[in-house]
């Protein structure tokens, strides 16, 4: 067991609606590392991602995670009437950015090539651009760990390239969850297959 893990879980169980989907899982992610959790539909990937972020209760023998986690949910909600940059600024301020909120918002927009959309209302964005905003939102404020739930969804080749670039440039640990064959294997090495054996990276 490494001492420098940013995310470490042992004896992890995934439960949804009173049903246990998986038990005895182990996850270990070092700072700056990439990892991919693979699983078919209904295997509990999204439940695991939300649980690791602290948004759902999670049962584990041992669970260590950073205080701040960036999260891009599979089905993101947005305030449609708000403009992208202004929205990210608010989120940065919510995270305690203070005077650097605008700089953080700009950095996140730049990371996913969203600058041209920065003054657009979110309701005006296509699904692909919204997914980029979802990813930018997760990276906002440079959290120690970023968890992306099916990040490839709705991305065009440019968007997918931007995601790949962000994964190369970012120095945070990134955990992706996706179904097999969705293309995410090219972005990060699989460290866990739900319903199969557990692995550690």
């Amino acid at each position: 067991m490494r001492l420098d893990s940013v995310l470490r879980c042992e004896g992890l169980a995934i439960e949804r609606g009173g049903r246990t989907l998986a038990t005895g899982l182990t996850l270990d992610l070092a700072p700056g590392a990439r990892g991919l959790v693979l699983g078919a539909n209904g295997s509990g990937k999204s439940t695991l991602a939300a649980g690791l972020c602290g948004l759902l209760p999670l049962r584990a023998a041992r669970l260590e995670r950073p205080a701040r986690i960036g999260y891009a949910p599979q089905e993101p909600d947005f305030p449609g009437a708000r403009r992208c940059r202004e929205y990210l600024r608010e989120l940065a301020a919510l995270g305690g950015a203070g005077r650097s909120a605008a700089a953080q918002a700009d950095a996140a927009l730049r990371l996913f090539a969203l600058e041209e959309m920065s003054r657009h209302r979110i309701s005006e964005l296509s699904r692909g651009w919204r997914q980029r905003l979802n990813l930018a939102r997760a990276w906002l404020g440079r959290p120690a760990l970023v968890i992306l739930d099916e990040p490839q969804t709705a991305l065009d080749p440019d968007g997918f390239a931007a995601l790949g670039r962000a994964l190369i440039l970012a120095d945070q640990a990134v955990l992706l969850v996706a179904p097999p064959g969705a293309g995410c294997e090219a972005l990060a090495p699989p460290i866990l297959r739900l319903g199969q054996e557990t692995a550690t990276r």
Partner: protein
Amino acid sequence: MSLSLLLPWLRAFAGRRAWIALPVGALLAALLALDPVLGPEDGLGSYLAYAALFPAVLLLRFGALLDARRRDGLELEEALRDPAGRRAPLAAVLAPAAALAAGLALCAIPPTFANLPPGIAETARHPVRISAAGEGEFRADAGGGLPRGSTLLLAFEWERPPQEGEQPALFATDGREVALVPGTLARWPASANEARRGVLEWGINSDARAAGVTLLRSMARIEVGRPRRGDLPRLLARQFLFFWPLFPLVLLLVRRGRSGGLLAACAALALGGLAAADPRDPPDLPSSPAGWIGRAVLELKDLLPDVRGLAAAGRGFELRSGTTSTAALAAWLGLGVVLALAAFGRRRPR
């Protein structure tokens, strides 16, 4: 507190048309309330009643925005970025306070342009209930505190004029005395204590009783100073103090009680309505389930600080305006602070 957190709230309060609707609404309210023919004397009270619509609408808008923020995923982002639950609730407390203050300040402007006729009476007179408190002793109960400087006006019937050497008068146990003169109204100024309690007690001395003086109870009136147009900023500031604690209540119900925002706003308005209610003649409630509910509501009202003076509006508002004691005001605002603090803390999204 970062402006980036407050601005989205303020923009959302304003909406796309609210900052046009509010001045236009305030102008219409001023035209309607302060019409020189329709209501030159009750105009200010009417205008305050119209102005009170703004905080009520803002409260509902606040509830709707809390609902919208949950739908828009901001609740989830708050759980991720502000796990201690400090910055988001602070913004949700400060932003409506700022919007309320700005809106009410705007409401203070239109009446200054109203063209009121000269000669509006500087005082207003209101009927008051008088009861006998003993032989030749009486008690006037205004059903709540009275403004400072209030005076009780009493009319008497005389069997005969006072004889030489007789000095008919009203007296109080604290030594105050007011001479009675046939054919004139007796003016009994309320002491500070009497004004605070809204209860005035006095007796008729033996010389007056010898002259066969009879109090005409139905003609008794409380005379209070009529606030002027220049008092409007102060009156609107009282409305701010009255409405502000209702916003933290909505926030608490939504964050801790898991209530819908609009429902929480309606509950807060109901509580505000209860605090502002002025039942001068408490009804004789029957002993039935409806009566029990009525009694429970009245008992709940008794638990609340008496802040009727902050919310006074409409016809005859001057009778209650400014009667809220410092203790009641501190209790009401303290309640708001406690509710706001209770709304802070970690929150798990639904």
